[in-house]
């Protein structure tokens, strides 16, 4: 059939085309994949036990045996960084996941219904945005208790306003579209129209937001544990590793801060570049 030849390029073929022509996005995608693999296989990849201390070997600079050096208790920094990937990604992904789901549903209904609900939600979002968001996250962790799950909740809450606004705006411009009316005419309820038609339609644009937010969420979560909130000391986590290494920076022990910092930076870089790339693939209109 000649129809296949005239078909519009599929998402996959378009994605391959973009990845092939845009090396940076391809690298970011590969980097993200690598991160996920590290997170999954970290226990088998790590050369040493990440929490076993070996005091005679403390504060060793990078060497062949410990290629990222050792910390003040003689623990292997490379192993700790590898193990921490899982926790850091878990915190970021679950926080962004929670705020995406809740934000999309709230924003979707607000954009669809409008009216009083929309005004009130808008007002609450405005007040949330009036707080410096990192300070709000700090206060939330203080209020809910200094535990790891509360870091996730706090990070989710400070991400929420963006998703609510985004979903609201995107649904709002589509709510009078022909296909929405068609769905209504077919007997779909309002709830079903929002959940089955409007939100899936908005999803591609939101995927960009998710990728960009993941990097931000990792920075926030690491910042919170850097100041001593959430994840507690012996657990390998990038923010805590930097906090512990901070004491030794004035005596020139750069590797305690440098390597976990590099891990944070590369992770955020991957997510940000992937977000930019996703924008090109999914939503060519928003290209910068």
């Amino acid at each position, binding site marked *: 059939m000649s129809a296949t030849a005239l078909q519009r390029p599929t998402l996959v073929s378009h994605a391959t085309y973009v990845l092939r022509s845009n090396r940076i996005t391809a690298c970011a995608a590969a980097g993200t994949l690598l991160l996920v693999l590290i997170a999954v296989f970290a226990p088998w990849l790590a050369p040493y036990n990440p929490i076993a201390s070996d005091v005679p070997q403390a504060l060793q600079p990078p060497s062949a045996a410990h290629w990222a050096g050792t910390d003040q208790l003689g623990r292997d920094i490379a192993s700790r960084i590898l193990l921490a990937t899982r926790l850091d990604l878990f915190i970021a992904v679950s926080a962004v996941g929670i705020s995406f789901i809740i934000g999309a549903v709230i924003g979707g209904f607000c954009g669809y219904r409008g009216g009083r609900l929309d005004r009130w939600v808008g007002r609450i979002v405005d007040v949330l945005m009036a707080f410096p968001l990192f*300070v709000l996250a*700090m206060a939330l962790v*203080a209020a809910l208790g200094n535990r790891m799950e509360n870091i996730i909740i706090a990070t989710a809450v400070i991400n929420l306003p963006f998703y609510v606004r985004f979903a609201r705006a995107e649904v709002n411009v589509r709510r009078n579209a022909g296909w929405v009316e068609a769905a209504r005419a077919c007997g779909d309820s309002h709830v079903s129209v929002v959940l089955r038609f409007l939100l899936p339609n908005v999803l591609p644009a939101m995927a960009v937001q998710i990728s960009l937010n993941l990097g931000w969420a990792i920075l926030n979560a*690491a910042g919170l544990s850097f100041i001593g909130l959430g994840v507690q000391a012996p657990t390998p986590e990038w923010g805590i590793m930097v906090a512990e290494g901070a004491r030794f920076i004035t005596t020139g022990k750069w590797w305690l801060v440098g390597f976990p*910092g590099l891990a944070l930076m590369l992770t*955020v*870089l991957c997510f940000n570049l992937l977000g930019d790339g996703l924008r090109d693939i999914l939503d060519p209109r928003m290209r910068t």
Partner: protein
Amino acid sequence: MLAAIAQRVARRLISSIPALLGVVVITFVLMRVLPGDPAVFFASGPSAGKQEIEDLRHKMGLDQPVPIQLAHYLVDIARGNLGNSLTTGQPVVQDMRRKLPASLELTFTALTIALLLSVPLGVLAALRPGSLIDHAVRMLCTLGVCVPTFVSGLLLIYMFYYVLGWAPDPTARIDIFASTPPDITGFYLIDFALVGDWNGWWAAASQLLLPAFTMALFVLAPLARMTRASMLAVLGSDFIRTARSLGLKQHRIIIAYALRNALLPVLTITGIVFSTMLGANVLVEKVFSWPGVASYALDALLASDYAPVQAFVLLMASIFVMVNVAIDILYGIIDPRVSIE
């Protein structure tokens, strides 16, 4: 013109009241869900009897309905009573007043550095899109948002204190052996300048530079990116072509005509950036042992002393709301068209 600005100021101040009220309510709600019963906390000790705790609850108004407690809270804030810090034993307001200048000095210096670096960089990148400098700026921006402030701060300490030895010991606002300036404004740079003590001024400035630069680095990216984008848009518009065809000097076109028109979006993003900076304050103050409100609140938080934390959250949100008002007013001054509508 002045009357229009005054009117605008008044209108914006009034319209910021709901946001401020919302901030107070959220802070109150946070306080209500704080772990533990404040009465038990304030009681003499773990041995405090049930009767004593009941009396305290009554005295603190904790046995009253929540709306009444909220009203009491509002009255307290209006009177400037934010409770006492358990760690320092002082009223929180007093502690905050003493420590706020350090934080503001840091934040505003950082903002100044960031603007002084990012606007020229953005303009340069916009003047030659696709050139080497454009790519360099883009790379700087991409990397800048990826490095957490606490890591870049520590690496800057390593570089400038340990390796090069240019920066002083990163532990306070001023060297412990140097004398502090007379307490006039609380801003060391201003106080030293007022009494003409330039050695002291230099000591304070060199202490301030590294933390301020750390903070500036983090917000450089959004500012430079926005300057570039908005300059590009303005440079392509008709009135710039007209100015060029009239033979105006290049620097006059760029600075007086293009940049002034391109500044509005930059101003908008400055408001958002300021919020980021207030948050980053916590991290930077911890890295540099900077004795500001953020490190004060953080110490209190880790010691389960919640009155300073609440006051801090309230203060930061109020500052942010006020900065947004100021930015709105600046809008009207930079672009008179905004105040007409």
